[in-house]
């Protein structure tokens, strides 16, 4: 029997897939990673890690100016001078009211209508209070904000947030800072499948493979902070997650094989050698 399945990919010269970039809120981005600016050992390591990750968008918090605090370096200025777009958050807000006021202060302080909306339900898990989150999202959208809500990995909530006018949905992989990875990949896939806005996994990433998984599931972006900032070598980890993002995205575009319950031989069974029964 003639050889039937010789690959023709080589002769066709498979075209390499290229990420043409994506649109998030008012931004045209080439990097699919959004990095946090917190918990780095130093400002210099922060800047080096951001650079190694290739990110273009960096999250910041909004906090009361402390009268005792030294002037120090102005983080916003530092990021702006380094060419990063900023994404302010409402981290630490436990009510829709606090989150809305924080968002309004962020818009005034940083001159952007982008807001990573967090409304937290409890201090131990830092999981979202989805009811208050949806309420705050609705109010902020009405007020002209581009809302990127940090939400549960729940497809119904994600859809509701999209319906009230959020420009993206950001389901968690696992609790903030936990590094537990993507605990419910099927839910993330369901959210991706039904969303018409970008889906960004926000929180839970522990290492590079978690980033790859998010993109393999079809996410448009990944937001991470602690996984890089608290790695033993933050700059090296930033480079690792960058490579993982590319790998995962490429794999998604390439299209994975279906999962099978039993084995399927990759070497054809036909023409196998059989030893004679006779001695």
């Amino acid at each position, binding site marked *: 029997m003639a050889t039937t399945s010789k690959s023709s990919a080589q002769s066709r010269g498979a075209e390499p897939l290229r990420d043409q970039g994506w649109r998030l809120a008012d931004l045209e981005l080439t990097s699919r990673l959004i990095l946090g600016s917190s*918990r780095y050992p130093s400002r210099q390591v922060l800047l080096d890690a951001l650079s190694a990750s290739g990110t273009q968008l960096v999250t*910041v*918090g909004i906090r009361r100016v402390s009268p005792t605090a030294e002037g120090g370096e*102005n983080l*916003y200025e530092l990021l702006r001078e380094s060419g990063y777009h900023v994404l302010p958050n409402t981290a630490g807000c436990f009510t829709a009211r606090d989150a809305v006021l924080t968002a309004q202060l962020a818009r005034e*302080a940083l001159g952007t209508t982008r807001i990573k909306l967090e409304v937290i339900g409890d201090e131990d898990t830092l999981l979202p209070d989805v009811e208050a989150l949806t309420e705050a999202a609705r109010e902020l959208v009405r007020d002209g904000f581009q809302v990127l809500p940090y939400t549960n990995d729940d497809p119904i909530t994600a859809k509701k947030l999209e319906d009230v006018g959020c420009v993206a949905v950001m389901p968690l992989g696992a609790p903030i*800072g936990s590094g537990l990875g993507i605990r419910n990949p099927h839910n993330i896939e369901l959210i991706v499948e039904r969303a018409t806005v970008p889906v960004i996994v926000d929180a839970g990433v522990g290492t590079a493979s978690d980033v790859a998984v998010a993109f393999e599931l079809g996410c448009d972006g990944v937001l991470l902070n602690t996984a890089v900032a608290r790695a033993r070598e933050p700059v090296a980890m930033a480079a690792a997650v960058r490579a993982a993002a590319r790998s995962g995205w490429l794999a998604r575009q390439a299209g994975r094989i279906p999962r099978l319950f039993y084995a399927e031989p990759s070497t054809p069974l036909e023409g196998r050698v059989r030893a004679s029964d006779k001695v």
Partner: protein
Amino acid sequence: MTKRIRLNGTSRELAQGSSIAMLVRSLVGEEQEGVAVAVNGEIVTRSQWPEREVHDGDDIEIVRAVQGG
């Protein structure tokens, strides 16, 4: 007569005739980029700082960007 206000959650006394601009300067000096102010839950835009008087009983938030995730 002095005024009693709440500034970033702490009670504080102010001299007569203080504006938001003066209050911001007293807190952050001249480096005011990236600073925002709310009085009684309403944003006071930068251009309003010089004219906006601080009133007795005002609840004032003065914030800026910090590291965050």
